């Protein structure tokens, strides 16, 4: 299995991938620094620490959410593209090796996602320690876990859509859903939006969706199993 994960790692280890990851993370660095109101000076930040703290926390997490969802979808698109599917011909000799190939792909994406997530969360944690704001560790952890679940959701959606339609552009659908939800949740309080938030994990609709977390876990587990089965049954 490790050899298959290494193979997928090699596949996504190319210039474009690194360029996009680095640019996105650089933008995130700038965004988090800007959200801290550092341009107003430390004394000002300290003076209004209670007023700014919550805003800083919310804005930083929103930025992290955008970055993580974008990168997750991009990783899903890179791993799920038909060129990588073609590599099965060289590495599959039996049903077992085909299973390893597919599971290896799923795990590679998850591994990358986790790695970027850990980096991003550590970044926020370290940067916050240089500001006068108090980061509530429990809230921070809860939001992080929720964000991780959201990323898994979009990752699985991307892989499944890429598989069904076999086109790179299909990865844009989860991205559009994400943007739409972000805009609608922040601008409208319609009951329909609350209803959608119950069924699509997103940070802003956290309160609405957290009750269904077990259902989400089951749903995405079965979607992953389904993805594996469909690929196993598909001809190379």
């Amino acid at each position, binding site marked *: 299995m490790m*050899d*298959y994960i*290494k*193979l997928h790692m*090699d*596949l996504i280890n*190319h*210039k474009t991938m690194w360029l996009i990851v680095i640019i996105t993370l650089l933008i995130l660095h700038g965004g988090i620094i800007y959200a801290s109101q550092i341009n107003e000076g430390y004394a000002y930040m300290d003076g209004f620490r209670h007023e700014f703290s919550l805003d800083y926390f919310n804005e930083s997490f929103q930025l992290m959410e955008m970055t993580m969802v974008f990168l997750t979808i991009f990783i899903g698109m890179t791993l799920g593209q038909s*060129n*990588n599917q*073609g*590599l*099965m*011909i*060289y*590495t*599959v*000799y*039996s*049903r077992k*090796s*085909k299973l390893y190939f597919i599971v290896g792909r799923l795990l590679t994406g998850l591994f990358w996602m986790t790695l970027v997530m850990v980096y991003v969360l550590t970044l926020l944690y370290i940067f916050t320690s240089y500001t006068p704001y108090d980061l509530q560790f429990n809230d921070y952890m809860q939001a992080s876990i929720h964000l991780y679940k959201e990323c898994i959701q979009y990752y699985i959606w991307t892989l499944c859509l890429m598989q069904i339609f076999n086109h790179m552009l299909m990865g844009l659908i989860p991205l559009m859903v994400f943007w739409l939800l972000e805009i609608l949740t922040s601008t409208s309080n319609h009951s329909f939006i609350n209803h959608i938030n119950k069924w699509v994990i997103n940070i802003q609709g956290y309160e609405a969706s957290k009750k269904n977390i077990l259902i989400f876990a089951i749903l995405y587990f079965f979607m992953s199993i389904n993805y594996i089965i469909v690929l196993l*049954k598909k*001809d*190379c």
Partner: protein
Amino acid sequence: MISKPINITINDLSKTYQQSKGIVSVSKVFESGKLHIFSGENGSGKSTLIKCMMNLVHYQGHIEKRRYRIGYAPEHYNMPGHMTVNEFLRAIGRIKHLYQPFYHVELKTYLEMFDLSHKINEPIKYLSNGMKQKINLIQALLNQPKIIILDEPLVGLDVESQKKLIKRVIDLSKHCLVIISTHYPEKFKTKRKEIHHFYQGKIL
């Protein structure tokens, strides 16, 4: 010491595609010691049978083959362009559980044979079609397979490389099970070759 023959037994094998019949009820035994050549016109089922043997497609019927090391070079190669020749072959070698020092020896042999030593650190996307075909063949032969299946191996190769490959394949067929699909069976000059002619999904 006479080694045990390696064989693939195919029993009542059929493969149907959505619009056409790939293979129709084929039964055959392929044994080592001979060079098995699949020939026939386009769409006659050569590549389909090979894909069935490699478990790359779903089929009806039965294929019996023991778990030997296997090397397969597909007709349509699809290698990741951003990887260098070495990175790609090493990744394939790892999956084939090739011991690292052994990998270097084998790699050197084949790179010299195909005159590709100077391209080892070059990204695959910058190689010509013929060179890509050579990489495609090297990855199949790298792990000293006992079963070698090459689909249209002569396509894209220059005359010199074709000669070298043919010689190598004939040598290997003495103790391995070698199956080759080609439109030029006459190029493989050996008494031990067995030509299987395909026509409309059947072996005549």
